[in-house]
């Protein structure tokens, strides 16, 4: 079996003096991550291999935690602009989440202008959700029309966090923001719902890349922001395998918890079992024996 490759890029300069991501450092981290992940020595060429010029690309971010604990605009916009510049169509890049209100509160400026990067919520005028539920195993949901209709391929640019029910929230759970009823799928550690959702073609076939934002990690009492359990790690985690990336994120959270003397997620009965379920569905690899982890500093 071929191992899933996951790349961890660290940078001591990832966060600027004001505590926010430094766009230059972000770009360097994105480029290095893509190069190692693809085995290319030219990140832009790797991007062009990954995405077709005519494609509309969604960057799904997570802004439920507003400014305190959301995907940083400084990070998402840097990625969006780089993609747009590299692929030649800035307005084919859509940074999005559930609502414009959450986006704005997280620091984003809503933009639907022709010719520029688009940033918008599913509740934008004329967007909304599909009209009929998509059904797969345990899940039946309406999809954001951004994910279902506007984008051809997707990047999950997710914040890595401890999660009081799921165990961790990362690249896979980020797609809960693409459906109308995530509140229905938090029973039993979100298992099997998370895997069943990801298996739906609208996600599985469009998902190309996960980038986990682990610059600061909420390793306990997440997904809410609690500064006493929020640690700076200056890392971004890259992978094509959505299960493997989240598995590596889980390991990072467990390491932070162990360092702070906290019980493991298993001991707290919230181990992210959905990762094994996802592997069972053929969505990726959850076991470290099957994951090749490459770490690099920039």
């Amino acid at each position, binding site marked *: 079996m071929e191992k899933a490759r996951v790349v961890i890029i660290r940078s001591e300069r990832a966060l600027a003096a004001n505590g926010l991501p430094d766009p230059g450092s972000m770009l360097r981290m994105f480029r290095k991550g893509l190069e190692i992940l693809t085995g290319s020595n030219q990140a832009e060429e790797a991007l062009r291999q990954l995405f077709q010029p005519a494609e509309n690309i969604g960057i799904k971010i997570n802004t*439920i*935690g*507003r400014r305190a604990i959301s995907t940083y605009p400084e990070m998402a916009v840097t990625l969006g602009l780089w993609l747009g510049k590299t692929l030649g169509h800035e307005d084919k890049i859509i940074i999005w989440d559930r*609502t414009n*209100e959450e986006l704005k509160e997280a620091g984003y400026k809503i933009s639907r202008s022709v010719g520029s990067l688009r940033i918008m919520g599913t*509740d934008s005028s004329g967007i*909304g*959700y599909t009209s009929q*539920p998509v*059904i797969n195993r345990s899940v*039946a949901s309406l999809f954001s029309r951004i994910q279902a209709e506007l984008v051809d391929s997707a990047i999950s640019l997710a914040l890595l966090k401890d999660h*009081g029910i799921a165990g961790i929230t990362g690249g896979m759970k980020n797609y809960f923001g693409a459906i*109308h*009823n995530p*509140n*229905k799928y*938090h*029973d039993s550690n979100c298992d099997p719902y998370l895997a069943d959702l990801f298996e739906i073609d609208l996600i599985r076939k469009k998902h190309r890349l996960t980038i986990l934002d682990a610059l600061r990690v909420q390793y306990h*009492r*997440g*997904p*809410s*922001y*609690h500064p006493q359990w929020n640690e700076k790690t200056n890392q971004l985690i890259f992978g094509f395998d959505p299960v493997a990336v989240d598995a590596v994120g889980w390991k990072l959270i467990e390491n932070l918890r162990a360092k702070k003397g906290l019980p493991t997620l298993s001991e707290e009965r919230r181990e992210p079992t959905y990762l094994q379920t996802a592997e069972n569905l053929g969505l990726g690899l959850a076991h470290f024996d099957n994951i090749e982890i490459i770490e690099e500093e920039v």
Partner: protein
Amino acid sequence: MRRRDFLKGTAAGSGWLLTSNSLRTGQQRLLATEARTAAGLSRVEARYYDRLPDREIKCRLCPRFCQLGDKERGFCGVRENQNGKYYTLVYGQVASYNIDPIEKKPLFHFLPGAMAFSLATAGCNVACKFCQNWEISQMRPEQVQSRYLPPEAVAEAAARYNCPIVAYTYSEPVIFYEFMYDTSLETRKKGLRNAVITNGFINPEPLAELIKVVEAIKIDLKAFNQDFYTNYVRGQLKPVLDSIKQIASSKVWLEIVYLVIPTLNDKAEEIRQMARWLKTEIGPDYPLHFSRFQPMYLIKNLPPTPISTLERLRDIALEEGLHYVYLGNVPGHPGENTYCPNCGQVVIERYGYTIKKNSLSGNKCRHCHQIIPGVWS
């Protein structure tokens, strides 16, 4: 009352504008025309929750006991933890309202022929795969059109249109508990009565308080086994049975509806067990309605319930000693009528939601003077 009068009167006489293009036929649902954003949702502190350390809360309204961090919502999707305080987002946020005959609920022994001002907000604390109102019940409040109708507005509208009843229905009123409770107080001030159409998935403490302010409750008993509740409802049977017993021990009028879905919950033996349980636990006099299933939402692969199945299940329930067993969604069927359990004569003849003949004399059978339990006036 004519539809035109309803629309004209409401628009002219109140601050809550109902417009003609908000009327939807078929489901007889009125939808508000004014869209709302997340910012327009209510922010009224919820009842029945505990504050936990680190800004977490635990909801005690229904048997799910959702434990939520900051910014998270419960399973119902309409109650949210905001910085350690729990809020209902749907107080007065009416997503659907209409004037229905009370027989549509169905409540057959509660003011027959009366009209009920019926309303709902978005949200539900279960997820039935056969839900007929999923377009509001399975939505979060910001995903549906709604309008602001506070309790006093509901009471005023109901009184204005000669509705002696306000019915909390369509989605699941448990999840808009605070709004329902306060509205019930307002409607009582005007001499109106309150009917709750619910799945019964509520904890004993809030139910005990609700019972004090409403006059009738209809419970949808989805099946008589936990597997069905797990696989098709995402709920639990036992709390529903507990609710039935709790209501029956109060002064509130109770009726029970059982939607019969072919092959899923139509086993004769299970129905027999259910009938026995009802007779033993609450007695034979609370009406039981067997409703006909129509394919919808996530269960479109099954046919409508055969009439013969409904008739067979009704016969079983009658054999087990229940006095008032009805068939629903079968207009014109004799199983819609109320029969005196003593003399067997028809005391209320119905066609669909219409009363064709009422032969009650007060609360008694006109033929043999047997008392027919219910709220008749």
